[in-house]
């Protein structure tokens, strides 16, 4: 009988181990409801009486930045039931949960004795009741907007995993005057439309582009009735013609290391792509095809160039190595595809598609697959990427001769909205993150 019990004990133990009631429910969530993240950003606490306005200003710019990205929804401060008195104490999360905030930014600002403005902030996870990130940023008081943009970048990066893009500048062509006599001037402004600055006066200017340090702009200008590429140094205000070519030069773009400029040279109706080394001023020819080859754009690693060519009969997008070898076509969809721009993230190429009567902005993978149209206006062209490869800006021409505007859109096609400019504007180019 004892032997029987021993056997039954073993059997029962083994049987209990494989009891199927211990298995768990398996759930696979594949549908979502993408909504902007509700976030509470109270005015930054002022350390001294004169800092209250700075605290309100900085918080206001952070709210505007995050709202403009389409991924955050700052809650109206009037709805708050609690306030931040000291950023070094843990907030009462229940008071922020009750207004449905999922994130909370607590910040303070102080004018230091050395004349620098300093801001500290903490980003709190309201449900997890923990700090997600915190930083201290110091700058001269005149740069308070940059402090706010850097805070927005830090919050954006921590929540989305992607680098931010708020501390950047846009160079563009500001238009003024009637449709028959439009004056175009080169202008620079903050990414949110603040601090606009006119750089040139009276010349016809096209396709401006930043260099990687955002200190220089290359653009095309019609000085002397012949289009030429110029370099404009933002710090010194000096303008310099790039090379001394007998014919038209246009469509300039810097290499990622800032040492070279790729551009198109025209010769008897034929356009080819050349690269000029800015240090040695040596010129290398990359294409020799009798067709029109233009609009070159470097890959982020500088090893390849994507460009536009009509050698196949209509404008299409081609790719080649930075030395001109292995030129091959990558766009095969219908319509004409041009003005390709390589994303700073390296994974996509934005371009302009002309298909029958529609002109739209599209994106495709670097092998030409996965093409998607992401803008929906009447005439959208000339895309430029934010430095994080997530947001784009482009020129939207309005119907009826009403001029052009700059619009921005997310790479997913969402959040299409107008960029604030002093008047009509076109040809935007996005700078890298300002150092």
């Amino acid at each position, binding site marked *: 009988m004892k032997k029987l019990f021993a056997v039954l004990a*073993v059997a*029962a133990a083994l049987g209990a181990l494989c009891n199927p009631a211990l298995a768990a429910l398996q759930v696979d969530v594949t549908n979502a*409801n993408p909504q902007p993240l509700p976030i509470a950003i109270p005015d930054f606490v002022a350390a001294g009486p004169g800092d209250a306005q700075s605290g309100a200003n900085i918080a206001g710019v952070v709210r505007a930045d995050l709202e403009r990205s389409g991924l955050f929804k700052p809650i109206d401060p009037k709805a708050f039931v609690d306030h931040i008195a000291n950023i070094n104490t843990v907030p009462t999360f229940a008071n922020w949960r009750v207004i449905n905030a999922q994130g909370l930014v607590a910040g303070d600002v102080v004018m230091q004795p050395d004349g620098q403005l300093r801001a500290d902030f903490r980003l709190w996870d309201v449900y997890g009741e923990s700090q997600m990130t915190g930083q201290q940023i110091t700058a001269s008081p005149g740069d308070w907007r940059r402090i706010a943009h850097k805070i927005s970048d830090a919050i954006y990066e921590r929540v989305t*995993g992607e680098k931010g893009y708020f501390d950047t500048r846009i160079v563009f062509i500001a238009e003024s005057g009637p449709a028959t006599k439009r004056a175009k001037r080169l202008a620079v402004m903050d990414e949110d439309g603040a601090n606009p600055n006119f750089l040139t006066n009276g010349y016809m200017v096209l396709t401006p582009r930043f260099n990687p340090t955002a200190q220089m702009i290359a653009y095309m200008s019609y000085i002397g009735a012949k289009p030429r590429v110029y370099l404009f140094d933002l710090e010194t205000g000096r303008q310099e013609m790039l090379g001394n070519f007998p014919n038209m030069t246009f469509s300039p773009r810097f290499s990622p290391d800032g040492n070279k400029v790729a551009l198109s040279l025209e010769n008897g109706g034929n356009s080819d792509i050349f690269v000029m080394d800015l240090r040695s001023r040596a010129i290398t020819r990359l294409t020799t095809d009798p067709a029109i080859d233009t609009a070159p754009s470097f890959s982020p690693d500088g090893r390849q160039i994507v460009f536009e060519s009509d050698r196949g009969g209509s404008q299409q997008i081609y790719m080649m190595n930075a030395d001109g070898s292995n030129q091959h076509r990558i766009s095969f969809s219908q319509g004409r595809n041009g003005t390709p721009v390589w994303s700073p993230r390296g*994974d996509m190429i934005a371009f302009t598609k002309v298909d029958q009567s529609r002109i739209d902005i599209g994106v495709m993978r670097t092998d030409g697959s996965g093409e998607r149209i992401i803008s929906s206006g009447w005439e959208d062209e000339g895309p430029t990427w934010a430095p994080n490869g997530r947001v784009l800006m482009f020129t939207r021409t309005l119907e009826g001769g009403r001029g052009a505007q700059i619009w921005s859109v997310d790479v997913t096609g969402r959040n299409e909205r107008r960029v604030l400019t002093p008047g009509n504007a076109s040809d935007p180019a996005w700078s890298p993150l300002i150092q």
Partner: protein
Amino acid sequence: MSQSQNASRAKALRRPRPTTADPPLLGYAVSLLFHGALVAAVIIGFRHTFDVAPETHAVPVDLVTVTDRTNVRAEAPPVPKPVKPIVTPPANEPPPLPQFQEAEPSPDITAPKFKVRPETKKEQTQDFAALLNKLTKDVKVPPKNAKAGPRTITGIGAMNGMTADLADALKSQIYRCWSPPVGAPNANDLVVDFDLQLNPDGTVASLRPSSGTAMAVAGNSYTRAAAEAARRATYQCQPYKLPGDRYAQWRDVSPLRFDPRELMGQ
């Protein structure tokens, strides 16, 4: 005593006798081993008997009454095909039973000295039940900080096609709060798994990322963003409305997977 009896007794005395002092331990061990192996073989062999049927989504069904008139014409009656006559095989002669030889009567062995107490049936079941109770108590200790409800073991019915509706119900309640970071370049980075435990009132008792997700989060900012979005979704959409009488079936959700690849078209 006769001389022959003396002789036989002497003969018996000289024969080697089996010792009765020690119980055969080796024998017990070998017996237990073979019985254990038999039980293991049965379990391994019949493991899939308790498996879940592949999950089927509840599909709404419309009941349609077919009208009296149909367009279907009756088929012509099938032409009888010639059938091979069944040939009954000749009945086999059952094999002859092996003839057992009568064993020689065993020598005079005295019975082993230990007592066998014939146990009553009542005593048997009581001991066995006590044994089972002790085992099931030790089997799984719920985590200390979970405020989960009592566990009732429902046996085979816990994991089969009947739980597909529970998974769908939970999915439909969580997705409304989920905002994955869809701008990432590689959608595979955004798939995250969690182990969720729910209280009987549908609130979250504990939510922990799987070990694979925890490792991926440490190395990839997009995966971290995806995991945090999934956590926020799970906390925001509680309490979950699920049938209270089937609590044992939805108490543990593992894995709770958030997969936005279809959403991103990849």
